[in-house]
């Protein structure tokens, strides 16, 4: 077990990118377009800039707390009780994130390849993979991510650009979408697509060099946003926007359009192969985060036991009867608001208050 493993810059960026990639593979681009229509481009630029300012603020706020994550900062701010509350919130949040991802992806796989197999059959593969990964430890997960991320990024870029023949820039108009209010005010809800920011709250103590936090967050944010932007741009230029569009996995649909001459006409399965591995990596990271927070709350030392327990609970969650509609509802109506509420509002306020407390304490000490 290697839970004390510290990440290098490159590894930390890959960790953040795998989170973003998993969102791109699933329905995040669709939800963005669904909300603001053709205004998605201008909306993404807008929320991208806001997000970037937010990340810069995070960097500044974390300066006072090197080697601390949001759980430690909560303890600093509100004592152990507040730490436990924050821990439980985050454990539930990561469980939900993993659940939504897995249910969505497993349903997609079932629809495409395993019509006759029960969902549990697909889930079992993911569960075993996650258990093994978490038993082996963070070091192996991160190293696998480092291998997978470049290939996945290439696959996404290929999927985006290989269909350039079908690009139709007329589909951008109207550029501001349904109306300005929807694009700029209602469209703020699309900040949920910058879900990677959640991981910035936990990144600091995982880094080998805490001074590289700024670089890691900045670069990972820029690359993630670019990927998101390109994906949305490609989807917009290929598919027509209608109100009754089915929430299909847009990247998968893009990959189905790739043709290499007359010989290779359906390469989507190759992309799916890579994306499955990415989802394995992402789910392992989710469970790792749950284990980490859980250990912080309880001081449990047996990592194996924690790993097995958290994965068992996750498996139990996934076995709850669900269908595509439920998972979509959760993603669109609960998960989206939770991300905005917890990541962009709640934790930010905690950080600001913790900084004020830090200043106040320092001032008191200086007076004494």
């Amino acid at each position, binding site marked *: 077990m290697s839970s004390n493993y510290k990440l290098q810059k490159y590894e930390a960026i890959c960790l953040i990118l795998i989170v973003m990639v998993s969102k791109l593979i699933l329905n995040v681009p669709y939800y963005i377009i669904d909300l603001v229509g053709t205004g998605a481009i201008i909306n993404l630029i807008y929320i991208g800039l806001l997000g970037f300012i937010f990340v810069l603020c995070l960097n500044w706020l974390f300066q006072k707390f090197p080697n601390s994550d949001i759980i430690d900062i909560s303890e600093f701010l509100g004592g152990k009780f507040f730490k436990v509350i924050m821990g439980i919130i985050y454990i539930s949040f990561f469980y939900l994130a993993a659940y939504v991802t897995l249910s969505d992806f497993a349903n997609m796989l079932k629809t495409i390849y395993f019509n006759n197999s029960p969902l549990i059959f697909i889930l079992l593969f993911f569960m075993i993979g996650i258990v093994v990964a978490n038993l082996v430890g963070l*070091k192996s997960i991160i*190293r*696998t991510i480092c291998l997978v991320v470049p290939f996945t990024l290439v696959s996404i870029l290929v999927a985006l650009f290989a269909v350039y023949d079908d690009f139709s820039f007329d589909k951008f108009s109207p550029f501001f979408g349904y109306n300005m209010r929807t694009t700029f005010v209602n469209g703020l809800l699309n900040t949920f697509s910058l879900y990677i920011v959640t991981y910035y709250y936990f990144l600091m103590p995982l880094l080998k060099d805490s001074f590289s936090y700024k670089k890691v967050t900045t670069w990972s944010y820029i690359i993630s946003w670019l990927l998101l932007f390109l994906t949305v741009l490609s989807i917009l230029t290929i598919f027509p926007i209608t109100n009754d569009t089915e929430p299909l996995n847009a990247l998968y649909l893009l990959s189905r359009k790739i043709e290499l001459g007359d010989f290779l006409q359906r390469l989507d399965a190759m992309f*799916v192969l890579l994306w499955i591995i990415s989802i394995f990596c992402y789910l392992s990271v989710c469970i790792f985060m749950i284990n980490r927070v859980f250990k912080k709350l309880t001081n449990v030392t047996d990592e194996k036991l924690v790993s097995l327990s958290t994965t068992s609970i996750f498996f139990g969650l996934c076995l709850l009867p669900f269908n595509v509609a439920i998972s979509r509802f959760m993603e669109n109506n609960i998960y989206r608001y939770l991300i905005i509420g917890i990541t962009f509002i709640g934790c930010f306020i905690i950080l600001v208050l913790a900084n004020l407390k830090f200043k106040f304490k320092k001032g008191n000490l200086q007076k004494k």
Partner: protein
Amino acid sequence: MNIKNFFNTFFSYKEQENYEFILPNSANNLPETNTQNTTQQIFPTLSVNIEYLKSKYNLLINSDVKIRKFALPIHDKKVPAALLFIDGMVNEETITNSILQPLLLKNSITMREQNENKSGRMLIKNPKSPKINLENFIYNGLIPHNSISKETEFEKVIAKVNGGFCALFVDGVATAFCVETKDIKGRSVSEPISENVVRGPQEAFVENVRVNTSMLRKIVNNENLIIEEVDVGKISKTKVAICYIENIANDDLVAEAKYRINSLDIDYLLSSGQLEQFIKDNPSNTFPQCIATERPDRVSTYLLNGRVAIIVNGTPFVLVVPAIFIDFLTSGEDRNLNYHFANFLKMIRAIALFFAIFLPGLYVAITNYHQELIPSELLFAVANAREAIPFPVIFEIIIMEISFELIREAGLRVSSSFSTTIGIIGALILGDAAVSANIVSPILIIVVAFTGICGFAIPDFALTSSIRIYRFTYIILGFLAGFLGIAFGFFVHFIMLTALSSFGVPYFAPYIPFENLNDNNGYIVKPVWRRERRNQFLNTKRPEAANKISMNWRKHVK
């Protein structure tokens, strides 16, 4: 019963009784006299020494251990003496000419001359006289041999005799004289069997550790090459040589290698393959974690780059540690070739590795789940070929893979004269009869044959063996869940592999974790003039392997 007792009774952890395996053999009850380390000092009386040795060597039943008794003429006395050696391990001519003749003839001649020369001072009047040191007299004056040592403990004497030395015991002297007379028959240096190259040295290691170390010395040609020798195995006391270049290799690496070997508590060690399993970081993983090579030039290259070589007496395969994954895709020839061609070959090997592991699994997955990947024309051809086959693809491919493994195994086990016959039979069965009988489809033959060829293209035997196991796993996973199964297998496989390290070096160095590839680290072979630095992950004492401008002659070109 209170609540606490109730919980203790029903839910408390009870230690499981340990499973103990007892071999029904009375030998277990025998005292371990022969395996215990003897620290018995040599006795001054010859007869006692001989009795002791007879008991140690079981001379009543042991036929090759010889004790030659004789009387050593010193002055006017006959001092009883005995030689101990193992027949077949010593050179009898050396014993006769360098030990017995000087002791029996030269000694008496010297005495006679000294007696006759009255003007000369008599050094030896009486061997029992306190003035005379018989031990020094024999050591300095009677045995004209370059390699002789004095031992006072039976343990050391026995170890040397087992290694081909001859031990001389003299009555009245509590010391044994060990003279090197070894002449162990072994094969001579020949061409490598498993690592053939076109352009490069054509000699391979042999079974004798000393011959192997001399081959390394010949190539490295530097006094900083250290060859430390240790005995491994309480019974076999196998000679293991740990080789490194003192001013290059990392001290911690050398210490770790020595520590692992020295701390082995085993009865015997017979090969480097066994030693590899004892010292590798993760013994349960099938992937090789030490390089095993029979090429002295390859080992010398590794030594000069700061690695540690381990030679086991009795094995022509030398271990090199630490080993990273790309070492197993590297041939001894790569550095001798033009770097363009070497890189081309390396790329071919990487492709071969991919197909050797995944091709059968991918074939099963695609034909069962992802038919859309196959271009239409090819899909028709596959469907057409499979039309008359009554078995599912998984059955077909497992039959063929097992047949292939059988032919391969049989070809290795039989003598070379039969292996051609087996190859022909195998080819006929695989290639023709199976297809004619509609047991397998021709396209599957192509898949299995191509996979087999890809396996042969990988230079390392241990890696190939490991791949052969995983190939079956991927076939089953491909059958169970198509690309989901393959992705699952790959993920778990890679998670396991990234956890590996060899003597502290990550298995996928220098790529994962990512290191500076400018330091001659990576898979790509750099031009010979750009190989200026040693592998970064080895943390050597001399990071620079060449000057920044190694080709000084180019400086003078105008």
